[in-house]
């Protein structure tokens, strides 16, 4: 456990010692800020509209602002995740520092989990920006915090799964760009797989759509905790890290 934390700290240090972390935070902050402003503006316009017409429809901050924003975040995350994971192993392989890690009295799995954990924490930093925006809703409105918390849990699980896949891909190349591009491709594919359920109901279509990371986020976005979806993410995290370990082992045999 101690070793995991040492590796994790070092990785976080590299994120914040280079412009990578700040660039990601800035871009994510801008994009999410724009989404938030949009969602809020629509909410306000609709509210005024209804008042003018004298109708009273129930307006709900959770349903009309938080929920769409969370699904937006889950999609935008797909674009940021490759940028978080691409350097994890590729960079160490390129500069040869991987030799230091592997010849230290540390287990492979500790290195892998440490790096993955650092990536998850980096993603949490991005989520902090969204929380900053949501804080205004709590200041001026009265949303329910429980669905929001579950939504965040879903975002974390989804990111954890994709980050595990990205970590795995990063062990396969010395080139960050290749690692990033491949991870992006896989993330995107895992997203659009869900589309087949729109026109096909055969078993293969249901399997494909089940594999999509986005379909499993829907329940979390609604604020309900579905164990089936949580298990899906946990499985992907486990598999991703497991394959990373196998890939690291094979590195040594082939080298």
């Amino acid at each position, binding site marked *: 456990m101690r070793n995991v934390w*040492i590796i994790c700290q070092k990785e976080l240090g*590299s994120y914040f010692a280079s412009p990578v972390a700040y660039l990601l935070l800035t871009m994510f902050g801008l994009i999410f800020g724009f989404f938030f402003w949009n969602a809020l503006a629509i909410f306000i316009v609709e509210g005024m509209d209804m008042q003018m017409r004298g109708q009273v429809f129930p307006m709900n901050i959770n349903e009309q602002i938080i929920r769409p924003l969370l699904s937006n975040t889950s999609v935008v995350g797909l674009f940021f995740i490759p940028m978080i994971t691409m350097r994890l192993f590729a960079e160490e392989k390129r*500069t040869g520092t991987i030799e*230091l890690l592997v*010849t*230290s*009295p540390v287990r492979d799995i500790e290195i892998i989990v440490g790096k993955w954990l650092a990536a998850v924490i980096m993603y949490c930093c991005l989520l902090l920006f969204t929380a900053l925006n949501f804080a205004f809703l709590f200041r001026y409105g009265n949303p329910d915090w429980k669905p929001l918390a579950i939504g965040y849990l879903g975002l974390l699980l989804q990111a954890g799964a994709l980050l595990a896949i990205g970590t795995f891909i990063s062990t396969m190349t010395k080139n960050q760009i290749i690692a990033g591009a491949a991870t992006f491709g896989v993330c995107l594919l895992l997203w659009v797989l869900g589309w087949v359920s729109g026109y096909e109901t055969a078993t293969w279509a249901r399997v494909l759509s089940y594999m999509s990371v986005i379909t499993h986020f829907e329940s979390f976005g609604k604020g309900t905790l579905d164990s089936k979806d949580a298990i899906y993410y946990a499985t992907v995290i486990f598999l991703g890290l497991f394959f990373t370990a196998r890939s690291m082992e094979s590195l*040594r045999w082939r080298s």
Partner: protein
Amino acid sequence: MIKVTELTKRYARTTAVDQISFEVGKGQIVGFLGPNGAGKTTTMRILTCFLPPSAGTASVAGFDVLEQPLEVKKRIGYLPETPPIYPEMETAEYLKFVGKLKGLSGSDLQKRVDYVCQRCAIADVKTKLLGKLSKGYRQRVGLAQAIIHNPDVLILDEPTAGLDPKQINETRDLIKDLAGEHTIILSTHILPEVEQTCQQVIIINKGKLVATDSVRNLQARARGAESVLLEVSGRNGSLEAPIVQHKLEQVVGVSRVVCKEQVDSRARFEIESEKGRFVRGDLARAVVESGWDLNELRPSAMSLEEIFLQLTGTEAAAEEKTAPEGKQQ
């Protein structure tokens, strides 16, 4: 301390290390010598548990590299060919990170960081970014990183590669200094380095063990057959090299005469004598009695370099020996 038995490492198409066996005792400095691509780095990577062997065994301090890698890694300090540094880290921060990885903590860690900084003369760059350091400093940080947890065994892959002569000397002195506390294996393709720093040499070529012995023994072994350098010139401006060679060959105890070069009336020969035979006096007499001038006569002790070429039997060395003979005919 280190025991390697019939170690073999095969890659898809090539055999990088082929049934190498050797032993290194506690506190020794051993030079691992061989041309580029001989399998030095591969052997070192196996010893550091970076690569698993295809066959054979290797153990460090009694722990097998395959069965108890964690125990082996705890006892090894390793400096790869390029120092494994993170350019975005500061020197002290980096050493602390490595120290923690190797199991140090608290005041112990701080003490060791200060100690290695002072030992490797990098205290003045403690707060500098590693990416901004010169090659010499990076190498020393690499060395500091390897000794931070006071390991029993130090494995250094070409520790002086790419340094300027002053830095090379400093690094060598540092390594010699460290020998008392650690068992050291250092790989190199620079021969004087081995002569200067090591007590024992392991020579490998194309993955095979060529020789393993102490530096002194290797030199003595090669000196067994004395080799003499001789320069002769003709009195009246002309000299027939083949005649001189023939004359020299007739001296009792001479086993081989090679004409190295001939310029006008001067000719240089390299003469090898049989073991234990002292031929320099007879050679001088033979030259003078034949009416030639003796310009130079001196023993040429074989340097490690020649031993190395002899043992690894590279083509370059063979060509060097046959070419002058061919010229005479």
